[in-house]
């Protein structure tokens, strides 16, 4: 089977540090609250 789409990238790139830092801050500020109705509320706490 010929692969039209390969996961092996021919380039080695890195995301910007600010993108990574945003994700880390996002995670720290995120709180997930599960309600009685089994629904999720996402809270962004600064």
């Amino acid at each position, binding site marked *: *089977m*010929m692969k*039209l789409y390969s996961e092996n990238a021919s380039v080695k790139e890195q995301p910007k540090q600010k993108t990574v830092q945003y*994700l*880390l801050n996002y*995670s720290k500020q995120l709180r997930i609250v599960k309600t009685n109705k089994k629904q999720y509320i*996402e809270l962004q706490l600064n």
Partner: protein
Amino acid sequence: MRSAKISDGVLVSNYINGSERSLEVLIQRHQQRIFSFIFSKVLDREIAEDIFQDTFIKVIKTLKKGNYNEEGKFIPWIMRIAHNLVIDYFRKNKRMPMFKNRDDFDIFSVISDEKLNIENELIKNQILNDVRELIYELPEDQKEVLLMRIYKDMSFREIAENTDVSINTALGRMRYALINLRKLIEKHKIILVN
């Protein structure tokens, strides 16, 4: 924390239990592979940054909701998320270029060549982008098999199990998907230049 000796599974577990530092280790460990993969498809740094960010936002939300089952497949899971977001990006940015068709050229002769130089690599990626758009015109069952095989790198056994058909049926759908894809390339007069 000696991150080099801690498995992804343990880091994930620690993160779910409140260790934000574990998330940082996971991102640092896998960011190049994931970002490189995204960038190699969209060929635009800003878009790749956005998709990379969206990928990990989904990861963070899923982990914090407790909806992730650790089965030693953390990186394949993230790659599938990135896969799907890349596909979503191309869906939202549909492009159907009109080119002349050449009878003496086969797209698969370009794609199968692993010794392309940079210019040909760019051309190949453009062709791949065009072909991806055509995939969505296939019948649903053929499109499904093609996407699973090509974008999710699933075996035909896995495809058969996921779609509840025999392996032979999955193989047949793949065969017809490729036949129809060639017809669509002809129909849309996409030029496959080398």
